[in-house]
């Protein structure tokens, strides 16, 4: 049973995809809901309750994190990038391009999280082996592709640099 708690509100300043936002949020609001519900950035998805699937992966201060496992309040003062900010239609991020070229997606639900995770990974390891790519995807689940074309997509992006 939840008990009625006098709800305090937390003021936050968060920069998302280059735009500064000030908001007053419920302490319990998860960052993924701030992005999706408050800002309307619905490219970041929710696929599980257990921090397993990675569909909600974003960049928080440059690092890939699962936005379902961060309270919005914790992100106060942070800079965030979501799938909506990583590339443009004219200038896709190399990882986006790789996913398109190599058929790295089918239904597309896990794809934004995959792309964000892969992009962050390539920042730390620009020339990975296949095994390193597969390990880097440990926290991102795809049920459609069997991963092979995702691996190829990331290899494509790595080659492209």
């Amino acid at each position: 049973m939840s008990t009625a708690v006098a709800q305090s509100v937390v003021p936050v300043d968060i920069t998302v995809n280059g735009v500064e936002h000030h908001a007053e949020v419920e302490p319990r609001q998860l960052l993924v809901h701030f992005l999706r519900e408050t800002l309307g950035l619905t490219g970041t998805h929710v696929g599980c309750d257990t921090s397993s699937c990675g569909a909600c992966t974003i960049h928080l201060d440059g690092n890939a994190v699962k936005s379902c496992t961060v309270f919005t309040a914790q992100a106060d003062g942070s800079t965030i990038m979501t799938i909506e900010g990583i590339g443009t239609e004219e200038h896709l991020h190399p990882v986006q391009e790789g996913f398109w070229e190599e058929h790295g997606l089918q239904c597309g639900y896990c794809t934004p999280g995959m792309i964000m995770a892969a992009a962050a990974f390539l920042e730390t390891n620009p020339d990975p082996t296949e095994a390193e790519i597969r390990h880097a995807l440990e926290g991102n689940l795809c049920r459609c592709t069997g991963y092979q074309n995702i691996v190829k997509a990331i290899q494509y992006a790595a080659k492209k640099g």
Partner: protein
Amino acid sequence: MVASIDAPEKMIGKAIKRREDPRLISGAGQFIDDLRLPGMLHLGLVRSPYAHAKIKSIDLSPALAMPGVVAAYTGDDFMDLNPLPAAWQAGGVKNNAVTPRVLAVNEVHLAGDPVAVVVAEDQYLARDAAQAVVVDYEPLPVVVDGKKAAEAGAPQLHEEAPNNIVLEWSCGKDVDAIDHALADAEVTSSLHIINQRLIPTPIEPRGSIARYDPGTGDYTLWITSQAPHVMRLLIAAFVMGIPEQKIRTISPDIGGGFGSKIFCYYDMPLTMAISKKLGGRPIKFFEDRMENYVSTTHGRDHITDVEVGATRDGKITALKVQTWANIGAYFSTIAAGIPTTLYGRMISGCYKIPNIRVDVTATYTNTAMVDAYRGAGRPEAAYVIERVCDAVAAATGVDPAEVRRKNFIQPEDFPYDTGVGMLPYDSGNYEGALDKALAQVGYQELRAEQKRRIDAGEQKLLGIGLSSYVEVCGVAPSKWIGLPGEGWGAGLWESANIRVQLTGKTVITTGSLPHGQGHETTFAQLASDKLGIPYDDIQIKHSDSLGTPFGFGSYGSRSLTVGGTAIYKSTDKIIDKVKKLGAHMLEASEQDVEFEDGKVFVKGSPDAAKTIQEIALAAHVAYDLPEGMEPFLDETTYYDPPNCTFPFGTHVCVVEVDKESGEIDLVKYLAVDDVGNVINPLIVGGQLHGGIAQGLAQALYEGACYDDDGQLLTGSLTDYAIPKARQVPWYELDSTVTPSPVNPMGAKGAGEAGTIASTPAVANAVVDAVRHLGVDNIQMPMTPERIWVAMNESN
């Protein structure tokens, strides 16, 4: 005069990248959870913690007193809604179909059964309020095992289904004949097979959003459905008793389905009814993963005993199969067809088996409903027959590859009737695929290496697993599958409309729809080549009952073979009219003109051609049409296939098993598939990859598990192991091409082949690795522990 247009590039067979992708890689996809409707309210469901219990009382008042809560209901508030329909009941036998209501009334039959619902301003409040509802239950005894459920003294779920039996079904020879054939066999073997329960796990869970229009009495229902037209029909005609046209169903982008999004679920009519009660406020339900796991359908869950008879040289003479199929707490939409038509009638696999009998008993248990999951019946059948082939090999000493070769249906035998009530297999060259696979993988070298390791006493044992499969796709001729035959409660045709508009830009609407398969790309490739209209000028529209002709939806690898054929036939109709009008414009007779690459010209004079774009303009403006011709290029086809299609192939899996720990490495995976002619190899390759991953995951990782109280022990992605990137091998794909004679493209279907083939390939490889230790059977998932136990027990 429009400038002459060069013939567009040929698109069929090209591995072009998908046109769906730009929106999906940029976060611009529109999945159901992304829809924002003004005034939308959110549902929180109150679910039973007990797998079987009487509902003694429900107190909604604590929830109703909470801020942000708009309403709350129990099942009693929806008694005007009929239980959900049982759309596919097994043919020729009595089906004791008990389907769920939108909310359970009086009694719950599985943990997670919804008993009440709260409606709140946001998701957090809905969750708080659902937790505040007080329900008093009286627990009842529970059964979770599909075989034990039918035994005397088992807890009873439904009065309408004595002994929990949904149906008893059989196919093939009578019992005496099969028993004689087994008695006469030179060699016999038996296997006990558990085809474990799986959880489909599309990464997007399911959901519904409904909006009632009080002015018109119409509903709009957004659903994560593989079959929005069918959902409209079922909800209108069977659940609500209103005309179909009062409901518009829309499937937005769908985040995977694998069968679990075919069915009619409680939340669809529930959101509609609540929207009406609340004066038209949009109502949203979106599962979380836990809810998806406890209350969306599962797959497989068969317990099977097999007896096989063979000659000493490995020819199979008799196959007797007894299966208990657990369909869960209630009858899901098409649950009965899976373990009967799609399983029993495919048990013969690629082989000529003179004597077959299959008995299926389907039962209710206190578990989530079981219905179609990728492959649906065919993976279970392929698993039985492919494990049987290896058992025959072990019993006779004949190599597993040779056992398959000796029993294959031969190319000249097609169309081939297996004698168990399946439609005749359309075409095939099973030995060709096997030979190619064996050569590619280096089968003899692998066998030599396997023996070397055994002889040397090495720690890592090698296992080689074969799976030669055939499956049924492109479902299905209505008169065969329908009520008089296999019991499907409707037709199973497909539709397509093509409009070549004034500018030549073309829109195709189809009853098929994607949930990841790339229909927008493949269908446009097909139509572009046929019509000679540039690919980029053709758009495929789908998934909205208002804007598309009736279609039965996407499942059973039927979109291209049935839906694609409807498009193909509509292009034929367009071309007929284009030729008539083109001849008129060229002042020639229709017999004297030809249509090629989007142009009509008098035979022998291709330079003086009218393009399809010019003809579309003339048809649209209608200034000068031949006598009796209607304006506009607009043609529709409703296509009922004359037969199903039967893709086939051979997959080879090579594993290493650690003798000390039972741990497995997937060393090599080679697939030779024959899916007939291919429109887009990139997409077909992706379908095969994903299918192989799901199938091998059944062999090694996945398995839904309930405790004796009916609690799902694998209730989240931290317990239920769908494969990760490092848990799957590199897939080597190869193919043979045997066009299907059933449809004009010669396509067979590719959506499920990988899943059907890979489970037995991997399982056979694991057993093969340890067979020399005396192991002849391991149940799936073949975890390290199970392999370790099997090795120990045999020693």
